[in-house]
């Protein structure tokens, strides 16, 4: 019997644990629940001074002090309504996010995998120094490079293009991608590819037939992290995205200055639609999340 077990048997501890967990879970998850509820409310119900959280049929709703509301899909259909004075709807921004997020994720994972393979399998002059250079770029605050990057982009016409943001997000994710993938590739025995080499394959063939299939999990984990970063990024999208490559976070931010008030049901519906795929992906790789957040120093 371990000490830990015997604490468990003390009722006070068990209750304390329950209270802490239930309390935090309540606080942390209520905003998410509220977000989902908001997406099916009418605009007036979202800003009611008595919280409305009971979906009800019309007849049941009575008076300003009611906690009931009539569910409506207006928020969701609102995603399809163009913003005033612009042809773009939420879906346009979403497509922009998809193009930029997916392309930069694919690019970062591909480049990260190849680079990590190089560092893992070849002796490269100053290899360790280069690796630490790569790591250190992760800590670079965006504010230190935003002005030069903006000027570079303005000179080369990359502002307001998807390509511009794809490039930028790819580079920003490269650091994590290389480190994560290096951890995963280091774990694949060299003998696997060496035996392929001896068996008559070239190094490139061995990379595609042996290393890539073995590194699948690692690539999936890396992809999730790159996607989260690119999907959620706001600062550079705001500054560099212009009108042509505005992503969903920029769409949300734009609603803030809406003279007629923020259309909360639409915001909530958009938020739910926007975060769901990411949360699903992340949950799929949750066992490896830790590894991604700590540059692979902690095996998740």
């Amino acid at each position, binding site marked *: 019997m371990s000490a830990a077990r015997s604490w468990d048997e003390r009722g006070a501890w068990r209750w304390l644990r329950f209270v802490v967990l239930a309390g935090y879970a309540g606080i942390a998850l209520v905003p998410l629940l509220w977000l989902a509820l908001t997406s099916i409310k009418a605009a007036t119900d979202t800003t009611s001074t008595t919280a409305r959280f009971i979906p009800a049929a019309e007849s049941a709703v009575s008076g300003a002090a009611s906690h009931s509301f009539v569910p409506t899909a207006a928020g969701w259909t609102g995603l399809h309504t163009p913003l005033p004075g612009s042809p773009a709807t939420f879906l346009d921004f979403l497509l922009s996010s998809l193009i930029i997020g997916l392309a930069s994720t694919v690019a970062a994972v591909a480049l990260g995998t190849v680079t990590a393979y190089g560092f893992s399998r070849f002796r490269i002059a100053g290899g360790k120094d280069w690796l630490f250079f790569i790591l250190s770029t992760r800590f670079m605050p965006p504010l230190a490079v935003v002005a030069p990057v903006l000027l570079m982009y303005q000179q080369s016409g990359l502002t307001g293009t998807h390509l511009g943001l794809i490039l930028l997000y790819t580079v920003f994710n490269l650091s994590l991608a290389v480190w994560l993938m290096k951890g995963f590739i280091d774990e694949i025995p060299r003998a696997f590819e060496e035996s392929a080499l001896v068996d*008559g394959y070239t190094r490139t063939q061995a990379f595609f037939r042996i290393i890539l299939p073995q590194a699948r999990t690692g690539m999936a984990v890396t992809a999730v992290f790159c996607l989260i970063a690119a999907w959620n990024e706001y600062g550079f999208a705001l500054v560099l995205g212009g009108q042509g490559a505005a992503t969903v976070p920029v769409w949300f931010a734009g609603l803030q200055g809406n003279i007629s008030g923020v259309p909360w049901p639409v915001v909530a519906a958009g938020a739910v639609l926007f975060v769901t795929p990411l949360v699903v992906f992340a949950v799929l790789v949750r066992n490896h999340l830790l590894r991604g957040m700590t540059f692979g120093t902690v095996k998740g």
Partner: protein
Amino acid sequence: MTDHPRLAVAGLTKRFGAIQALAGVDLHVGRDELVVVLGATGAGKTTLLRTIAGLETPDAGSVAFDGAEATSWNPAARDVALMFQDFALYPDWTVRRNLEFPLRAPARRLPESEITQRIAWVAELLAIGHLLDKPSTRLSGGQMQRVALGRALVRRPRLFLLDEPLTNLDAKLRERLRLEIAALRRELHTPMLYVTHDQGEALAMADRIVVLIAGRVAQVGSAEDIYDRPASPEVARLLGHPPINLIAATASDGFWRAGDGTPLAPATATVGSRATIGIRPEHLAPNGGPRPAQIRVVQHHGAYQVATVAWAGGESHVLLPPEAALPIGTELHPSVVQDRALIWPG
């Protein structure tokens, strides 16, 4: 037909940073022989094998197959099969897929029927037919070893390179498999270079043994040559169980004498010259010698017993018959069997 050896290695040198892995290795493997490279851990055996396979580039020296200079060839072009210590079977592939992999190499382009035929052949040869559709991760150690061997055989390469293929197996399996491997090789008439640190494997399998010490070839010869006439104390120490007794000696009165004066072997050298005397335990009779030796430890080995005795200023191993019941402290008088002492002057 020229009589170039299948493999000829000359002056092979390789350095990793501060470590000299290979220091001018010369070696050849004939067209139908099993050469065992015997060496302690870190002697450079694996580097040698990897260099021959083309996985490492040597700093100097050359590798030639059938007389063709091949030092700059890439691994695929060398047509050798390398079997790794930990087998390197691809997980989540079936045994069949693992076996097919070398045959499907783009360089080889074998017709499908040929592939099927070869798999069937190797499956029968190694008795692994029932394993073909199992994932390779679900095999026992012995089964994995067979599959790995099968992957090497199925290619019918010009040369087999085996890197300590039995190390990860248990003792019983090891002894059986080493005989099987040697027998299979004879059947296929394909030469093999087999690397091991296990003297038992070397003695049991080798047509020829190459002793590698600190990146150099210390001796080449048959098992008897190496065992009976080791070129140096280091080589002598690699072979034999219990290990050879090595005693520093000085010549005086016509004998090589240990530090305490114990005579070990007749000496013709000038008085005062030094030598290392090697006496295999089986060449040290328990009694009949001039000097007493107390038994310190006795180990039973079934067919014989090994006694560690305090003798000649140090400790030596003496073989005793299995039935001898000699308690610790018993006094023996070891004597060296005539002409069986090995003498390395210097």
